[in-house]
C-alpha cells in the first residue's frame, strides 16, 4: 500500500520543495489584455446596420412622348407634392384647375392627405416634385410616407414653371 503513493520528491528531498496545493497564476495581466481588446472592438464596431430604400425609376422616354403620358392620366387621380426648402410642403390635385394647398410633414399633415387620396381614388398616383434647394431628408420622408400609406404608384418629376406659378398664386415666392 505504501508503494502505491510513493512520491520520490516527498521522499527524497527536504520540505523546501514541498508542492503547493493549487497553482495560482496572476490573472491581472490577462484582464488588462481582455479589456484592452474589448475597448478596441467596442469603439470600432458599428452596431446600427444601415437600412436601404429601394427606388425603381421609370424607363426614360423621349421628350415628346412625355406630354401624352401625362394627359392619359385621369386628372383627379394625380396628387402632386411639392417639397420646398425649409421643410415647407405644398400639394395639389389634378393638373389644369389645380390650387396649391399648404401642408406639413408627419402624420397629421401629408400622411392624412395621402390616406384620403388613397381612399377616394381608385388607382391613385402621386408625383413628387422637389425644389432644387429642398434637402435630401425631405425626399426620404416623402418616400417613407408613400410606404406607410401603401401608395403603390409614385414618381419623381422636375420642379417646373407650373409649380412656381401655382405657388406664387397663393403668395409663396421663391
Amino acid at each position, binding site marked *: 500500500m505504501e508503494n502505491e503513493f510513493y512520491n520520490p520528491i516527498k521522499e527524497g528531498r527536504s520540505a523546501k520543495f514541498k508542492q503547493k496545493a493549487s497553482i495560482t497564476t496572476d490573472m491581472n495581466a490577462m484582464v488588462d489584455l481582455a479589456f484592452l481588446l474589448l475597448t478596441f*472592438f467596442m469603439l470600432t464596431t458599428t452596431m446600427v446596420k*444601415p437600412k436601404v430604400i429601394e427606388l425603381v425609376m421609370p424607363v426614360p422616354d423621349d421628350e415628346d412622348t412625355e406630354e401624352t403620358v401625362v394627359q392619359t392620366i385621369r386628372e383627379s387621380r394625380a396628387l402632386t407634392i411639392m417639397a420646398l426648402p425649409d421643410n415647407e410642403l405644398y400639394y395639389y390635385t389634378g393638373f389644369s384647375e389645380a390650387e396649391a394647398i399648404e401642408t406639413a410633414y408627419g402624420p*397629421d399633415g401629408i400622411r392624412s392627405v395621402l390616406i384620403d387620396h388613397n381612399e377616394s381614388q381608385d388607382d391613385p398616383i402621386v408625383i413628387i416634385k*422637389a425644389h*432644387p*434647394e429642398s434637402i435630401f431628408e425631405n425626399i426620404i420622408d416623402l418616400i417613407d410616407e408613400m*410606404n406607410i400609406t401603401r401608395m403603390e404608384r409614385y414618381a419623381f418629376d422636375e420642379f417646373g414653371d407650373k409649380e412656381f406659378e401655382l405657388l406664387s398664386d397663393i403668395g409663396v415666392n421663391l
Partner: protein
Amino acid sequence: MGNNRIQRPKTPELDMNPMVDMAFLLVTFFLLATTFKTADPARVVVPKSVSNVELPENKVISITLSRDGRAFMGLGDVEARSRWLEKVAGIYQIELSDIDREVFSSLSGFGVPSSELNNFLRLPSDQRNQMQQPGIPIDSTLNELGDWLVMARVVLPRSRVVIKADRLTPYKYVDEIINTLTKNNILRFNLITESKRLDNGE
C-alpha cells in the same frame, strides 16, 4: 508567536478568473458582431427612415454625396477595384504604376477628377486622408461619374448601386446623381438610411 496563524497576507487577493471569463466573452461577442467602420471620404449623416431592408454586404457600388454636393465613389469588392481602375484609366489615358493600383485597391472611396487621380494616389497616406477631395465631376459636359459607373458595372455585373447622401444635401445634387444613373440605364438603386421607429402621431 502565537498570532502567526491569523497574520493576513500582505496584499488582498481577488479571484480574477470570472472577470477574465466575462471580458473574453464580451470580446468574442464584439469580434463576431462587428463590421468595421469604413473610413468615409467625407462626413455624411444619413437621414432616418422607417425602412427595414438591410444593406446587402457585397457587390455594392456606392456613391457618397456630401452636404456640399461633392460625389465620391467606391466598390465594396476589394478584388474588383484594380480592374475597375484599369478600365477607367484606359478611357482617360492615365499612366499608372503598380503601386498606384495597390493604393487604389486599399481605398473604400475616392472623389477626385481623373486628371488629378495620379497625384492623389501618390500622396502620402496621411495627407491623402486629410485632403479635402473635390469630388468626381458630374457636369453634363464632363460626366466622369457616369464613366466610373459604367465601368463599375462591367467589372461587377449584377451589383447594386447605393446612394449615401447627407441628410442636408440639396435635392439638386441628388437629382444630378439620379439623372446620371438613369442615363446609364441603372433604374433600380438604393438610398442608404438609418432606421427609425414609425411615428404614428399618438
